[in-house]
């Protein structure tokens, strides 16, 4: 069994090494080095900050200051760790489904996969440095044997967070891949949303009073974030010098980690054993009718294919849930904090932010536009198609999907924020959303053609983008945001909304022209690169 595990470790290392030494690997290697170069100073900076926080909390020796410090450290760390892991975690190298054929206990393979979530991920350096910072800060404040218990708490916190992320990913995958569960999840989310809305509207003069009234009893919800709640409670006791009182919390942390790990493993195992049979059907009633729906012809077929494939993407469905949720949170927590005196443009910034965010959410689709085509990519070259039409159909469908997300998000913001953004802001936000799209799509096409990657359909093994593409995406988004920030800055200075609308309109029109002109050239590039492109996208060289 030791040999088998050693082989697994070697396999993982070799796969990683091959990623950097095969075609295009140098760019990947450089991108990884750049990410590491960014991660190390960021991690060290945050480590010093949380270390100082831990130092202050221990020095306080109990009481509110100590309690708040402990809670802030663990809940803050947990929140960012979870969010980043859910977006970036790549456990594809140890996909349970691939390893079921080997005489290795699936639990061990799964455990290895989780371990790579801590040590095999560049972001692991950031989290590791921050936990080390907490330990060093606490040790400097009060050296002693209690640090052993703190070390156990911190290590268990790291494992608990990784296991928690795994559970969320497995559950999301299960829910999104099983038709019946998906339908129930939709019904449940509608019921919960309506319930929350009813609660908010219970008092029409002050919609949030109802929430305020129930907030104390909602404290129990902190245990939903148990990987942070247990260590926060344990640290509260440890910081105050009550070592014995921390033991039940540490025990609770270890037990719940084990239970969560067991649960996520069994869901993953169930999914792996049933792989290929749980995807559900498009329609169980035989062939789909042809006389209705989208227009005919090649263009109609291209658009329809894109729309159907995009909608059947688990990642896109998660975005449908995520975008309105985030927009609601922004309207609830951020918008009220912007004073009326800040000016109309500033008050509209959260709405503008959401307009851009809907593009960001979908970046895997515009930076790796062919990532899920597999063998279907060959159709683009086998059928008598203009590749420019393929790119245009992809761009159009993705833009419309993003627009749908934005409209849903903006509607919720209008309800929750009770119209705190000025009326012209929606038009401006639509202009911003439409204006940035062609720039992002034109640049995204290039990245998609030059750095394609056969992406996983399962969201719990999200590897939609290579490190290089991710880095390029950061550059593209920053550049486009910089472009569009200029008219906004000028408008804030001049307090002129007309200036803002005109600026964004001009930039958007320029973007549309650039996209229109760029697509045929990108199509030619795609045709020229098909020898390298097809094996990668079809997964032949995987």
């Amino acid at each position: 069994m030791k040999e088998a595990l050693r082989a697994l470790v070697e396999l993982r290392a070799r796969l990683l090494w091959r990623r950097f030494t095969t075609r295009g690997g140098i760019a990947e290697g450089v991108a990884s080095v750049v990410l590491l170069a960014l991660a190390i100073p960021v991690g060290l900076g945050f480590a010093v900050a949380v270390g100082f926080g831990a130092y202050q909390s221990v020095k306080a020796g109990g009481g509110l200051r100590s309690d708040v410090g402990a809670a802030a450290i663990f809940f803050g760390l947990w929140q960012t760790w979870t969010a980043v892991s859910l977006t970036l975690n790549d456990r594809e190298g140890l996909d349970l489904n691939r390893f079921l054929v080997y005489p290795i206990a699936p639990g061990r393979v799964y455990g290895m996969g989780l371990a790579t979530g801590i040590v095999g991920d560049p972001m692991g350096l950031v989290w590791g440095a921050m936990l080390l910072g907490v330990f060093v800060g606490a040790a400097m404040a009060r050296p002693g044997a209690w640090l052993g218990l703190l070390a156990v708490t911190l290590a268990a916190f790291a494992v608990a967070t990784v296991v928690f992320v795994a559970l969320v990913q497995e559950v999301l995958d299960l829910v999104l891949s099983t038709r019946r569960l998906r339908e129930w999840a939709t019904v449940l989310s509608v019921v919960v949303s309506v319930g929350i809305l009813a609660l908010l509207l219970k008092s029409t003069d002050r919609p949030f009073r109802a929430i305020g009234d129930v907030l104390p009893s909602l404290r129990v919800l902190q245990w939903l974030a148990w990987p942070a709640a247990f260590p926060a409670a344990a640290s509260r006791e440890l910081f105050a010098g009550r070592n014995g009182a921390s033991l039940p919390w540490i025990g609770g942390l270890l037990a719940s980690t084990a239970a969560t790990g067991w649960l996520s493993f069994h869901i993953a195992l169930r999914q792996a054993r049933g792989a290929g049979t749980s995807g559900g059907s498009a329609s169980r009633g035989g062939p789909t009718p042809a006389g209705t729906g989208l227009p005919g012809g090649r263009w109609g077929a291209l658009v329809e294919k894109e729309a159907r494939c995009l909608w059947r993407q688990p990642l896109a469905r998660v975005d449908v849930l995520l975008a309105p949720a985030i927009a609601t949170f922004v309207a609830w927590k951020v918008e009220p904090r912007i004073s009326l005196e800040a000016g109309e443009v500033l008050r509209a910034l959260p709405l503008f932010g959401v307009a851009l965010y809907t593009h960001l959410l979908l970046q895997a689709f515009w930076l790796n536009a062919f990532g899920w085509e597999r063998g279907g990519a060959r159709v683009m070259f086998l059928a008598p198609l203009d590749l420019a039409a393929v790119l245009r159909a992809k761009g159009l469908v993705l833009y419309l999907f993003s627009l749908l997300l934005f409209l849903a998000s903006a509607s919720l913001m209008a309800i929750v924020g009770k119209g705190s953004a000025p009326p012209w802001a929606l038009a401006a936000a639509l202009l911003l959303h439409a204006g940035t799209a062609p720039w992002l799509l034109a640049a995204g096409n290039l990245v998609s053609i030059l750095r394609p990657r056969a992406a996983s359909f399962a969201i719990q093994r999200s590897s939609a983008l290579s490190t290089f593409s991710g880095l390029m995406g950061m550059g593209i988004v920053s550049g486009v945001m910089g472009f569009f920030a200029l008219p906004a800055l000028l408008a804030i200075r001049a307090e002129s909304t007309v200036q803002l609308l005109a600026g964004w309109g001009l930039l958007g029109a320029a973007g549309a022209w650039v996209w229109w002109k760029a697509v045929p050239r990108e199509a030619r590039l795609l045709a020229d690169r098909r020898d390298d492109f097809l094996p990668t996208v079809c997964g032949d060289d995987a």
Partner: protein
Amino acid sequence: MADPLAVETRGLTRLFDGKPAVTSLDLRVPAGAFYGFLGPNGAGKSTTMKMLTGLLRPTSGEARVLGADLSRDGLSVKGRIGVVPDGLALFERLSGSEMLRIQGQLYGLDRLVAARRAAELLEAMDLASEGGKLVQDYSHGMKKKLALACALIHGPELLFLDEPFEGIDAVAVSGIRRMLQDLVTRRSLTIFLTSHVLEVVERLVTHVGIIHRGRLVAQGTLDEVRASGSLEETFIRMVGEERAPGPGLSWLGTRGDEK
């Protein structure tokens, strides 16, 4: 007057990283022929097929398909051929019937015509009850049949099939074989097929080409190529003498304690 050619190549060559995969290939596939393109693994069969169908660019040489120069009139040629490539060309997130209909539309068929043909093809391939299922949930054999249906939906004049019998059971092989024979006899359809299954090929094809290490070593009608022997004997003689059996594997056949 010589038979018109469905496929004609002159000096077709493809290099990968400077190493030849296919060298100076001069293929001649008569229109209406059932052409079996044979060769051992790695001989260059799939590379040739990819070059003839536009999936791969030749490094040098010329290829004419259905009388048109592939490098100049690629788009018009594509509309007249059907292809079942190695690895298939299916969108996993479409249902079988959607895949067929959309494929038909991509080849220029009207939506209603494409839908009607899709239903007929599903019936013919024995997939009618599975038409609403996503392609990703199809078995390998079902995917092969669906890919063949996709290649036929627009009524091609020339059909390229890369290993159509690989990975499917004997019943499906028999069904596909019957369908292909029927297609060739019913109308003037040319079929260009690669396969390892020599017994099946021998029963199907009218013409044969054998490629070995990227070079064409034999070409002609089935009778011309196999002469007096069977196709298998001819094939083995041409691609290399039978290998002497290697030394036995030391750990098999004994209950060794080496772990």
